[in-house]
């Protein structure tokens, strides 16, 4: 049960603001009434299982996919009506590795890409190419997935866009290059004021970067919140309980997970800690431990709610 999980952020300036996006591919619902809110300057982690709608959401923002209903705005620009302007403000790393011209050499593709972006920083592009160990004389079509991903990252970052849409940016990279990439991304965020929407399965890698999280499942945005909210409101409670304990009915709607051992129950609960401790104690349980969750544990709890 996740009925009380937040699906709206508090008021503030939004870089990305979608309202009620719905998209179907045939019978399959890719997005169902998705209202994504990404504050300006945030690093927003979009998580969800395969097919949850993460890539489709990013494509809607670039007008690569059009939602049947709903609207999307990037920096206040409607993504359908002012798509070229939106795309000029976005650095995009797609999930697919064959993005770009397979017959073109890497160096030529970077030059070609630069022509489209007046803000292209050639010296920064050269620095990125060096960091990512790009071989500019190789054709795009012969690159491995990881090599192609590094080219895409260079293309996305080098024009210093105010918004980055990164779809599995570290997918296919070896551990060393993954670490290097995250370092480059952190440096980039420190140098350039950027909002990031990041979709990845490697949640543990972005623990130190992400400050907002959105959870998509089956095309529905189940929850979105800031990391501060997450840290404050999502806790694991280890509770010693008497024999034949019947549980706490008043916690319904906030419990994400429950693990039961003899005379002990672990609850992962969304809500104010003091209130929950009071309810658990009032019901006869003895709260032994309350711990905040790591981002990966929180993600798992939010993705697989069961009580």
């Amino acid at each position, binding site marked *: 049960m996740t009925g009380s999980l937040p699906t709206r952020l508090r008021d503030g300036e939004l870089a990305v603001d979608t309202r009620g996006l719905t998209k179907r591919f045939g019978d399959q619902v890719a997005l169902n009434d998705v209202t994504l809110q990404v504050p300006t300057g945030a690093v927003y982690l979009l998580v969800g299982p395969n097919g949850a709608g993460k890539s489709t959401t990013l*494509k809607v923002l*670039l*007008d*690569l*996919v059009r939602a049947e209903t709903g609207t999307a705005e990037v920096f206040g620009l409607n993504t*359908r*009506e*002012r*798509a*070229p*302007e939106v*795309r*000029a403000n976005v650095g*995009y790393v*797609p999930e*697919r590795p*064959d*993005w*770009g*011209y*397979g017959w073109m050499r890497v160096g030529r593709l970077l030059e070609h890409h630069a022509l*489209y*972006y007046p803000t292209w920083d050639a010296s920064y592009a050269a620095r990125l190419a060096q960091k990512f160990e790009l071989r500019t004389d190789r054709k795009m079509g012969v690159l491995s997935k990881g090599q192609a991903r590094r080219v895409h990252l260079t293309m996305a970052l080098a024009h210093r866009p105010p918004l980055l849409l990164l779809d599995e940016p570290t997918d296919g990279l070896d551990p060393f290059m993954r670490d290097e990439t995250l370092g480059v991304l952190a440096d980039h965020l420190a140098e350039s004021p950027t909002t990031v929407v990041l979709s990845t399965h490697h949640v543990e890698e972005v623990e130190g970067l992400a400050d907002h999280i959105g959870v998509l499942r089956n095309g529905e945005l189940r929850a979105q919140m800031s990391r501060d909210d997450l840290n404050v409101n999502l806790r694991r409670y280890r509770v010693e309980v008497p024999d034949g304990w019947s549980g706490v009915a008043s916690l319904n709607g906030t419990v994400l997970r429950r693990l039961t051992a003899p005379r002990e129950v672990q609850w992962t609960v969304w809500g104010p800690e003091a209130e929950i401790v009071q309810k658990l104690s009032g019901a006869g349980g003895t709260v032994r431990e309350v711990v905040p969750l790591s981002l990966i544990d929180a993600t798992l709890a939010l993705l697989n709610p069961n009580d």
Partner: protein
Amino acid sequence: MIFFICVLILFSALIIGNTIHGVQTHPPGHWRTGFTYGAPVAIPIFLMALLIPFGVWRAEDPSRRAYHWSMPVARGPHTIAKVFAGWVWLMIAAAVYLAFVIALAMIVPKITGEAVRLGDTAGWEWIVAFTAPTLGYLLTSIAVIGSDHAWRWIGGLYVGYWVLIGCLSAFGMQDMGQAVRTITDGAYGLNAAMIGSARDAASASSGHMTVRALSMSNWLIAMPLWILGSAIGVTIASFRHRE
């Protein structure tokens, strides 16, 4: 481009080899090819031009919404610019093809002892080497840009056209069949636009279609009409993907 030139070299080698073989195996002065350039020689480059849009839009067709479509520019003009860029390359290929054919038309008569006949080629037929591929390129571009299933459209139209003519003929509606057939073979049909050839309408009515001599006057009207129509089709297809 390298592949294209290799094919041309191979093609030339075959023609020259066959000519030498013919000269060696026939009595002197009895082997004639009459090989020269004329409008019908543009047909291979026209056929090649039909395939070029698939290369230009490889992995970039509308359904994939790939790199081309994610650029920060208006999609309609951007698409037309890409079609134009592909056309420029096609014209270079047509010029290379024409140069090879001219070279062959000068080399082959030297082997057989014939006179070089390039001077017999009418002025407008030289232009056909560029207009015919342009037409083929634009026609296929409409399907590739406008549809997610270009092969189905092209194949469907081709098969449907001949099936329709066959059915009309089978049901004794020859007149209607001939009327439909003017799309390709009429005075201002596709063949006339391509190389200036049309079927003889008088002989068609007797059931024996014969190719009429190449006609500059037919070509001069049909070619701009077809190219203009195709260009309009490309423009409509390009702006189908507007923002």
